[in-house]
């Protein structure tokens, strides 16, 4: 099949490649760019395991052709920690609050939460639940994911994290 050139910035790094036009962004990221953090969990755009930031918006990268990301700015889970290795507040929050078990949904969940907190830096529990409803988790029951995001929001906002009473 004929190939077309694409160019994008992934985690601050310029990437150029020749791809089949039908290549999905998730496959491009995982198999050509070598970034296996984002995962594939379904065929129907339901699970969100493949979520990344595309021009500062959450997208399900299984539902975007790589060519559609031509010229775009992509951030994946691999781009979340600081250059010196310091974890992003969300990465820390998920660990502190036990927001993951098998870890398969986690990169997508963190990337979704990342955009969510940009849209709404101080979300209520319900806003978080609605905000992550495009991301499925089979392991955690979401309760600790909600807390992880609240923990991260507090950390980003520079306020002490207060656990809501159960």
């Amino acid at each position, binding site marked *: 099949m004929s190939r077309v050139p694409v160019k994008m910035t992934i985690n601050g790094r310029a990437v150029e490649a020749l791809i089949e036009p039908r290549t999905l962004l998730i496959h491009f990221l995982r198999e050509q760019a070598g970034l*296996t953090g984002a995962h594939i969990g379904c065929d129907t755009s339901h699970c969100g395991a493949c979520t990344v930031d595309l021009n500062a918006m959450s997208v399900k990268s299984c539902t975007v052709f790589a060519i559609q990301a031509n010229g775009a700015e992509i951030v994946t889970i691999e781009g979340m920690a600081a250059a010196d290795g310091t974890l992003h507040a969300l990465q820390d929050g998920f660990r502190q609050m036990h927001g993951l*078990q098998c870890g398969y949904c986690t990169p997508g969940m963190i990337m979704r939460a990342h955009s969510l907190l940009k849209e709404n830096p101080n979300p209520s529990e319900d806003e978080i639940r609605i905000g992550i409803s495009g991301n499925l988790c089979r392991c955690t029951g979401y309760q600790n994911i909600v807390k992880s995001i609240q923990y991260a929001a507090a950390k980003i906002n520079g306020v002490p994290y207060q656990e809501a009473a159960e």
Partner: protein
Amino acid sequence: MNDMTPTQAERTGKLEGLGCRRKRTEDIRFTQGRGNYVDDLKLPGMLFGDFVRSSHPHARIKSIDTSKALALPGVKAVLTAADLKPLKLHYMPTLAGDVAAVLADDKVLFQNQEIAFVVAEDRYIAADATELVEVEYEALPVVVDPFQAMAPDAPVLREDIKDKMDGAHGPRKHPNHIFNWQVGDKQGTDAVFDTAEVTTKDLFVYHRTHPSPLETCQCVASMDKIKGELTVWGTFQAPHVIRTVVSILSGIAEHKVHVIAPDIGGGFGNKVGVYPGYVCAIVASIVLGVPVKWVEDRMENLSTTSFARDYHMTTELAATKDGKILAMRIHVLADHGAFDACADPSRWPAGFMNICTGSYDIPVAHLEVDGVYTNKASGGVAYRCSFRVTEAVYSIERAIEVLAHKLGMDSVDLRMKNFIKAEQFPYHSALGWEYDSGNYHVAMQKAMDAVGYPALRAEQKTRQEAFRRGETRQLLGIGVSFFTEIVGAGPSRNCDILGVGMFDSAEIRIHPTGSIVARMGTKSQGQGHETTYAQIIATELGIPADDITVEEGNTDTAPYGLGTYGSRSTPVAGAATAMAARKIRAKAQMIAAHLLEVSEYDVEWDIDRFKVKGLPEKFKTMKEIAWAAYNNLPPGMEPGLEAVNYYDPPNMTYPFGAYFCVMDIDVDTGVAKTRRFYALDDCGTRINPMIIEGQVHGGLTEAFAVAMGQEITYDAQGNVMGASFMDFFLPTAVETPKWETDFTVTPSPHHPIGAKGVGESPHVGGVPCFSNAVNDAFAFLEAGHIPMPHHAWRLWKVADGLGLHA
């Protein structure tokens, strides 16, 4: 002692051992996208396999034409049954003593069954090529309803075994019959039923569903033709068993088969078995001499690899008028699909279904299970439960509610009246189990107090009156369940998989500088083993958990074990871990005595050190002892400090719990809203409460899904419905209720640290709790038993059937 000396509490705290809410080791890589899952693997020259699947549920295959697919550039091979037959691999043995087709031979038995395996340069070409394989079918009549499977004129499904009327578990009554399994005293039970004051009889259908972990099943097989060695990376909950099976099937000596289970994205029972994808990838790699990857898509996962449940349970209780249960009788019709591929221990065709007397002291009981073939996918796996325990608990916990309603008794009172009493443990059940420990009355009372049970019942009464007066359209349901699990399979005297006893193992090695590497025969799929096993070792050996690396899944380095399912890791490998650590501590004691120049009997263990009795300032820490183990040993002692233990458990463990659910149901929309869910679990000694709570949250969420909507159905023509996340209900954060967790601690008397296992309890107890809440909401309208799943449309229909929309 000066102020700088750490206190005992400080020394204990530093270990992060048993009971610590220790943050998970594995999260450091997972939160950075550095997990290492099967599909992340990319090997030079790797090819990609994909299946051609049957569009028919039951049909003869008249021809398969692969020529167009083979002509597509990039396609390297197309395997069909004709290629596998000479290798005797077109069928493979199942764990249940049956065989299952790898690639359909002359007929297909369920929709989406594997027919051909296309191998191509990348996954897109492989997918294209599957479309080019032409299969000609001759449709056959379909059996979907298990109750029709044994009709005299039912079409014969399994022609390959139609003359083999002696199955793996005794005689078969019909070509579509798999086994008849009976436990208990039939005569004694029947006699009680004949004269009992009160009896109940209901058909409880536990519908077909699927474990559906977020990562599907997948593998990479890589044959090194020069060395004659095969490496298989895969989503294996039981990697060592897979290695043995692969060796037997392929004829490659077991030491030349390397099976590796890397990080696994959830299992829940889906990843125990051997699937055609694994076999085909391995065969393709052997034939082509290059690595071959196979990754299921979600549709394939839901419709082919290992469904769960599909148990049709006719459950009867006999009792006195005042609510003393006298006997239980159950007949189960078990729909196993096209092949008997249940992942149960070999001698248990219906798993541990005979735990169905539940938490109650029922003097006599009889259980009979008939397994049948239908034109559906095979499986029958333990989806987040020990083998068939979730079915058993659903059956008894629904029956208790039905009986309470018939007696006009509160169902909690009925439970309290019939619970096994604390002093009866170890308790021998009518159907043959020895419950290790329990304190049911205390747990139930604690749960009732926590939810304010009497006030809830009062509110419900008020609501019912208001409903009758037409002042509200909301019903209030109070769901109760009390469950006893049976986990930790199991003693090798009655549990084996393909003849291998169901022990498990741990190997612990202390390095000279006092850090540890430990390896187990189990395999975490998200349960956090790297964190919790380290905590067991930390407490046993006084080395901080942070200095302990736990490895699982590489069968070359880890000791042989039977894997992780049926909540067996803590009960079995957790026990092995403690036992191996104790062997090390015994040797360390001798080394310490030698270093302290006293007799072995004059030193005693103190958190992280051996000290001289009565002289606490004279001690050697475990770290110091570790160093000495490599350079300063008692004369004649073998150097090094390591141990391995294979633990054959003396008994199962029996975790239990009391759950309450409060639910509002709108009769006009059928929408059910869980207002409150409280779960009290007793899993014995608690290793890491944070992880336990996480397991309970996850298990309850899966229970909520199953009870309230998750289902794999088939239409009358055998078309599988619900094979994508469009139709298969996986709750999001919005629908999922909030969970309250609580606990009591009743240690297992036979487990070295008293732990019982917890991962599956919330699913086992949660499903009946939700279903009981729904049933309880409608019970005052005499709705009878309302079958699961309880999604809005079905609840609306229940309300409609009761005339509530008139």
